[in-house]
């Protein structure tokens, strides 16, 4: 509780405040059991605690009960029941979010949707597939093995695809393949009162449409506050014929970021371009037992046909040379490439390993590419001035970077410094014309910054939409708004 206050998370912008947790009505749990069967309902403390937190450091807020629906009709019945009794509902996929999205701050029922795990309607000519919440992105890609297609959105964790749609997830491949938003063609949503909505119409997956307001885009990134995403139609992409990965060390942060900007301006269709500052590189090298020089580093991946790839490699090498970067050693074998990316994906744990016993908090600002060098350099200076351990890692191709702040949550002075730093960073990004959250979502912690980012009219419009779809504020209350 104290930590949340310190980080300025106490102010709720919704109608309910943190303290209005109501006990479940009598016979409610029995009614839940009547819908899904007793084995699919739990009020055990351990189970509720498991469902009350994600990978962020927000305090665990367990729901009053957890249910496992097996089919969408059950989700509808359960939602209608909760709606009648005014009980809050929290959707749960894999619990790998980073903003406290599943924390049941007002109690209620957690809907664990992982048992609904069908992969259906795979179309190799239409490049689309339909998945339920229990399907994770790695499971989908393994299922697609042998078809020549893949789903490229890669946030690092093996997250539920519907969960990724709910948070508008992104990742290392977004610079070329896009975030979740352009890759979700249709959603089957259970609204808070139990009605079923297909955002692009039932059974449709047009690659483009101009039919009415874009409901699919509304629900992508809604973080469980507008309804349950019980099925998603996803856009698939062809696997690249040839892939090459390399690291490049630079004499300064500015040189590395400038190189990124130039690679994009040269229209090299880079698939992934990740930045690691020297603190992050050292932490990752130690953690993953690789030997990379401790300098501002770029980790790049190129996709293309065999001949096209060679041309991209040459272009990239020239630009890296121009910015004073090291010579490039391209990895082509799957094992070497996986090793480099595993090192990058374990950045979170590598950062935590710098100060064992401390907790981690990741910032997530995203700014226009033109402003990126300045914002990154200023942020780095701010980190040093504030004496905060915050290795930086980022999808610089999108202008998005994370400071993984590792600090002792029990030390109020340090916690205050961290809080002040994140506020300054958020405002710095907003002042540069960017956003306070590029991919992690608003969740519990960024609601105050949302008003600054969108303005009063923006926030009021969001509230109107929320009230229209969820007038009793039962869907994941306490998040986003």
């Amino acid at each position, binding site marked *: 509780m104290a930590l949340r206050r310190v980080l300025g998370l106490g102010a709720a912008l919704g109608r309910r405040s943190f303290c209005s947790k109501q006990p479940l009505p009598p016979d409610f749990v029995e009614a839940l059991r009547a819908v899904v069967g007793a084995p699919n309902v739990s009020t055990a403390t351990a189970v509720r605690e498991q469902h009350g937190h994600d990978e962020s450091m927000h305090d665990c807020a367990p729901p009053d009960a957890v249910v496992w629906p097996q089919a969408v009709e059950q989700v509808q019945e359960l939602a209608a029941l909760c709606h009648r009794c005014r009980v809050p509902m929290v959707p749960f996929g894999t619990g790998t979010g980073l903003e406290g999205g599943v924390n049941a701050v007002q109690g209620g029922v957690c809907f664990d949707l992982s048992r609904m795990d069908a992969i259906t309607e795979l179309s190799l000519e239409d490049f689309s597939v339909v998945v339920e919440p229990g399907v994770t992105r790695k*499971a989908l890609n*393994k*299922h697609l*093995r*042998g*078809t*020549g*297609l*893949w789903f490229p959105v890669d946030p690092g964790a093996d997250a539920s695809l519907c969960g990724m749609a709910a948070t508008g997830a992104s990742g290392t491949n977004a610079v070329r393949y896009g975030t979740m938003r352009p890759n979700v063609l249709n959603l089957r949503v259970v609204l808070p009162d139990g009605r079923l909505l297909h955002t692009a119409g039932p059974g449709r997956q047009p690659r483009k449409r101009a039919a009415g307001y874009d409901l699919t885009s509304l629900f992508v990134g809604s973080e469980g506050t507008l309804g349950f995403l019980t099925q998603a139609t996803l856009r698939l992409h*062809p*696997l*690249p*014929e040839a892939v090459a990965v390399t690291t490049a060390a630079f004499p300064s942060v500015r040189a590395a970021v400038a190189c990124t900007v130039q690679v994009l301006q040269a229209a090299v269709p880079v698939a992934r371009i990740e930045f690691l500052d020297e603190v992050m590189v050292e932490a990752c090298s130690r953690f993953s037992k690789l030997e990379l020089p401790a300098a501002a580093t770029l980790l790049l991946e190129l996709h293309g*046909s065999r001949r096209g790839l060679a041309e991209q490699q040459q272009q990239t090498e020239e630009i890296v040379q121009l910015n004073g970067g090291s010579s490039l050693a391209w990895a082509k*074998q*799957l*094992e070497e490439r*996986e090793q480099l990316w595993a090192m990058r994906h374990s950045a979170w744990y590598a950062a935590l390993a710098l100060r064992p016993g401390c907790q981690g908090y990741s910032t997530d600002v995203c700014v226009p590419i033109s402003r990126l060098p300045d914002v990154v350099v200023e942020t780095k200076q701010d980190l040093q001035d504030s004496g905060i351990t915050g290795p930086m890692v980022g999808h610089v191709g999108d202008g998005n970077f994370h400071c993984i702040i590792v600090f002792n949550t029990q030390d109020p002075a340090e916690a205050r410094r961290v809080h002040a730093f994140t506020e300054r960073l958020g405002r710095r990004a907003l002042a540069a014309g960017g956003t306070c959250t590029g991919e992690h979502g608003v969740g519990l912690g960024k609601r105050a910054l949302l008003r600054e980012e969108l303005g009063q009219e923006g926030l009021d419009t969001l509230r109107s939409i929320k009230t229209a779809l969820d007038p009793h504020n039962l869907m994941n209350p306490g998040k986003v708004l």
Partner: protein
Amino acid sequence: MAALRVLVGVKRVIDYAVKVRPAPGGGAPGDLPRPLRVQTQGVKHSLNPFCEIALEEAVRLKEKGAASEVIAVSVGTKASQETLRTALAVGADRAVLLEVGEGQAVGPREVATALAALAGRLQPQLLLLGKQAIDDDCNQTGQMLAAMLDWPQGTFASRLELESGAVLVEREVDGGLEKLRLRLPAVLTADLRLNEPRYATLPNIMKAKKKPLEVIPAAELGGTPPDPPRLKILKLEEPPARGGGQKVQDVPALLEGLKQAGRI
């Protein structure tokens, strides 16, 4: 490029992610009342993971210039053609299906016999198989095949290197790693750490449709009619369902509970 021909055995198996169930039993006259097969109708199948690793190694040998031709072979029903097309998409030059009838019992001995006969025809210098199939977990085909051909064998290979007329194999054994030098021709079976297999890409899948795939009835290969199968499945059932757990207050209660369950 060395004139080294590699034969890679691949098997079509139920996909590792599928929840396997016994086939619905009975129904037709003459059927046994309890099912002795698992449900395969409408179930996702794929290339056996260890065969994928063997195939990947063969394709890498060709890319390095150490091998001149990679031939994928499978002993199975007509459905195995789709598995062979995947093998062609990954990089095999041509494929051979040694076809058996639907419902025909085909175990390691039958497969090894068929592969040995094909090896006699195609004269490869290297025979690469997966160490075992994930449906039966037999881990016998490679070994039997080597014995039938009287070729040296390097099983559980986690690293291999070709030399002139020989192959250097690093094997994963119980005590650690063992390094062998085997004279060619030899039989090798691939273990997990040999490599990370590539995914087939769309352009390669399209090219694979044009690569040659020959279908030969397995019975025709041997010359003599095949021996009747020696293995008979006696029983096939799901493991018992997991019962609820129980908390006890103290050790005497624990012992009482174990006695009642007939465990002590």
